[in-house]
């Protein structure tokens, strides 16, 4: 187990360095936006990674509701938390990109707005997990995750239609993408997926240990009182 983790950590570090090089130096400079466009190589893969993580959260929540498997619950919590971290990156890099290109800090761009709503939903999920006093918090959280997932297509369509009525700047690829840029984009995505895996693995381990400690502590206080 430990060795796998170390290998993943090394591979991730190497991939991230390579991806950084590709993004900053090897990738061709975009014509209209110049070098600022390179933010794209961090902004877009972070969004895709966040979406993958939220998909994992949805699936593990369903598995938990069906089987009440503790590992599924821990995976749901982990993927939600790491997903929120990646979402935060998207929400910070987006405005930093929009400012020099469009002169505004925010735009109701489809991807950016969808990311904002997902961030809100999953932060509320994490807060529920923290504030819940029920013994069956995992069940309640899983139900909320299902609600969030059901909401996503509705959010997508509502923003899409809103944009057709209120057109606003699009952050990122207008449409066709230079194949060399697509190549760099995919490399960065692979690097971020590895990073996400690493972060999830760490968080998962942590949660596992935390729960073992809590159980041991509960057992100990039970034994103390029965003495």
């Amino acid at each position, binding site marked *: 187990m430990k060795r796998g983790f170390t290998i993943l950590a090394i591979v991730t570090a190497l991939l991230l360095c390579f991806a950084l090089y590709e993004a900053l130096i090897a990738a061709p400079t975009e014509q209209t936006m110049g070098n600022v466009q390179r933010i794209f190589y961090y902004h877009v893969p972070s969004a895709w990674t966040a979406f993958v993580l939220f998909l994992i959260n949805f699936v593990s929540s369903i598995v938990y*509701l069906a089987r009440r498997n503790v590992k599924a619950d821990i995976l749901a919590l982990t993927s939600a938390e790491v997903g929120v971290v990646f979402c935060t990156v998207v929400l910070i890099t987006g405005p930093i990109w929009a400012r020099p290109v469009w002169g505004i800090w925010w735009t109701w761009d489809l991807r950016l707005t969808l990311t904002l*709503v997902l961030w*809100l*939903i999953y*932060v*509320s999920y994490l*807060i*529920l997990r923290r*504030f*819940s*006093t*029920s*013994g*069956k*918090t995992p*069940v*309640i959280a899983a*139900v*909320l995750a*299902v*609600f*969030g997932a*059901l*909401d996503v297509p*509705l*959010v997508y*369509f*509502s*923003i899409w*239609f*809103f944009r057709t*009525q209120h057109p606003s700047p699009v952050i990122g690829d207008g449409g066709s993408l230079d194949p060399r840029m697509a190549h760099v984009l995919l490399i960065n995505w692979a690097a971020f997926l590895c990073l996400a895996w690493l972060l999830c693995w760490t968080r998962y381990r942590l949660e596992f240990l935390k729960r073992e400690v809590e159980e041991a502590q509960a057992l100990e206080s039970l034994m103390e009182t029965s003495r």
Partner: protein
Amino acid sequence: MSFLDITRATLAKDIRLEWRSKDAMNAMLFFALLVVVIFSFSFDPTAEESRRIAGGLVWVAFLFAAVVALNQTWARELRNQVLDAYRISPAPATPLFFAKALGNFIFVGIIEALMTPLFVAFYKLRALGPGWELLPVGLLGTWALVINGTFFAAISLRTRSREIMLPLLLFPISIPAILGMVNATTAILTGEDPARFWIALLVAYDVVFTTACLLLFELILEAE
């Protein structure tokens, strides 16, 4: 007893209880009036501008009034340990939930019905589009808020900071519905675009979440 029988019985009980404690209802209505007045002082547009922003204003006011109302309705159940009674009773949880949602729908609907003429007066509102379409928008929008609101209010019962938990959970999930209500209302008032897409979105939202709430409430009630 069938689903409908249980729903009807529970709903009748809730309405009777609500009617007996008219204080809560009156306080709620006064709160709604205050909201309208404060909004009218804060946003004082011309008649032309008001048509564009009234949709958003009215629905935000309804949203906050609804949250206050929803927080109230479960609080009474908690005080009298009604939830434990629900859990022990052989009746399935779903019709009980549905009755609660219907009761809330009526309660919030009355509040909205009282706030609306005030808004119309303060903002000199007049629909340039098909005004009758505002009724389905109102019904669908209110149902969207109430069905999820009742569900999340039940979830919030087992959390710290219960009152803040409800809007915290409700608002993000309601974003597509809010977009729908606000834009449909604005479209009808300004008469510029058809509200049809937004109404369809509200219908889809209501169907999806009513189904989800009815199917999953049992799990929430059991979570002790």
